[in-house]
């Protein structure tokens, strides 16, 4: 599929099952999104492809970041939900790790779709990889449609402001967008806050070269300790909080929504504070 030979795909799929631990095959078989005779759903999500593509992600999950996930029972087994978390680490490994947690450490598993920036579909290979793994461009139409179909969406309301912030501002939540709250209110969907501890230290950035970013049409151009935005083997701790339900009109003024958004932001900040307090070291 998309350039990966059949044999390599098969090998990756076996690797996924191995890394996932006992019972992974049975659990993954519970994922049954709608699919046509070409194996994809209308958005281009392909479960077989995901199983193959998940292998390197799971290797990162189990061996490199050695992720510990807490509170996965807070993610509902079915029905629409918005998972809202902090974004950090220069490259979005945090999204992949949250999704991997819901895939291999949750029973029954959930295929979580992360909302990605409009920039992603302009990237070769990445655009295809993301689409086959169920990631989706975060337009309001897409979100409405997916929530109406009972899907789980992963949102980072900080966007690239959080992802590419410098090391000095680690664990300081940047401004949250309001869009996710409008979606939650409009569709009556619960919000599960998530705090990702570890990613904030994975690639310390000291500089953001905006002129270069503009030149390359990137959102940011961070310079990290290693020069490249590649992650160090920090240990991830992912804390899922209790679902939050909000009521009210989705069409309120921004000022009214900001109050509700602040409650979600506080919940994420609380999970982060707890995660940092309970960990002994950044790397283990």
């Amino acid at each position: 599929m998309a350039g990966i030979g059949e044999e390599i795909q098969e090998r990756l799929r076996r690797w996924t099952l191995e890394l996932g631990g006992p019972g992974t095959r049975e659990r993954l078989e519970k994922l049954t999104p709608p699919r046509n005779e070409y194996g994809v759903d209308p958005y281009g999500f392909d479960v077989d492809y995901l199983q193959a593509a998940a292998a390197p992600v799971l290797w990162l999950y189990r061996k490199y970041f050695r992720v510990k996930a807490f509170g996965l029972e807070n993610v509902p087994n079915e029905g629409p939900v918005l998972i809202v978390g902090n974004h950090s680490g220069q490259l979005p490994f945090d999204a992949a790790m949250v999704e991997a947690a819901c895939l291999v450490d949750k029973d029954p598993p959930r295929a979580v779709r992360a909302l990605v920036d409009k920039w992603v579909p302009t990237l070769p290979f990445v655009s295809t990889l993301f689409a086959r793994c169920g990631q989706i461009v975060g337009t309001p139409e897409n979100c409405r449609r997916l929530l109406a179909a009972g899907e789980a969406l992963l949102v980072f309301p900080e966007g690239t402001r959080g992802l590419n912030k410098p090391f000095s501002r680690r664990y300081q939540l940047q401004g949250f967008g309001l869009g996710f709250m409008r979606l939650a209110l409009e569709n009556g969907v619960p919000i599960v806050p998530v705090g990702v501890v570890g990613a904030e230290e994975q690639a310390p950035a000291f500089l953001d070269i905006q002129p270069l970013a503009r030149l390359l049409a990137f959102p940011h151009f961070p310079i990290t300790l290693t020069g490249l935005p590649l992650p160090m083997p920090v240990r991830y701790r992912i804390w899922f909080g209790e679902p939050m339900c909000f009521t009210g009109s989705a069409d309120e003024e921004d000022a009214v929504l900001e109050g509700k958004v602040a409650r979600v932001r506080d919940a994420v900040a609380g999970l982060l504070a707890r995660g940092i307090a309970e960990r002994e070291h950044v790397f283990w």
Partner: protein
Amino acid sequence: MPASVAITGIAGNLGRKLARILHGETHVVGFDRRPLRDRPKDVEHHQLDIRKARVEDVFRRSAIQAIAHLGLKHDPRDDAAEAHSFNVAGTQKLLDIAARHGVKKVVLLSSANVYGPAPGNPNFLPEETPLLGAARLPGYRDLIEVDMYVQSFMWQHPGIETVILRPVNIVGPTVRNAPSNYLRLERPITVLGFDPMVQLIHEEDVCRAIALALRPGVRGVYNVTGPGEIPLSAALRELGREPVPLPHFLVRQVVKRLFDARLSSYPPGEVDYIQYLCAVDGSRFVRDTGWTPRFSIRETLRSVLGNR
């Protein structure tokens, strides 16, 4: 079904197919500058440019009740000014005549491509999406202008049931449009690392959709979808093609050179369609008319190979 239906562009592949579907049920009156081959006996054909005054005389004589407007030119090699006059002025003249001679129904065959592919597109574009298709592909300017003109006609003449159909890429054994020709290439150019979802509809299904829209009671702007969405790569694999992937920063240059050298009929703007999403939500047409395509994805795809 209205008692008599005028079809513009009847000598084209779609027009002929539509005439064949309709002529048993209603009196078909064709307009086209080209002669109509294999004309069924009960089909009336006028070999005329729709901008000519004689068109009105046909309307005076034949009590036409409905128009299926398919006769738009879209060859990128046509003279742009002449095509523009034919498409836009022709449509305006035709609708003007329709309003004056008691036509009850106008169906325009537009296209889902009027929205235009873009990286930030939602996966399924609703009918309200702005028509930005001409931003990078000037060839769509005429179609968009016609589409908008017919929209305003819809409001100006509430007594006439006006329908704009925006079907996804039409493919089939006889059609010769860009998507069909692309799928017929043994070694089609693709954009390295990009694999958008594409939507196709069989030419016969489109004709059935037009026939459905001609029925009394249907009015409005509708996307018309076929049997579903597939990755472009899966479509090419199904047809046994050997794609030639080119990096995105080179592909437009290459396509432009090929077009300028008359080695291919694809202007560089068409690359957007194999790089980004331009898929639509067809649920409104399904809800209002009970539309279901007859051909599966595989049959639709394979139809480009058949009886040429």
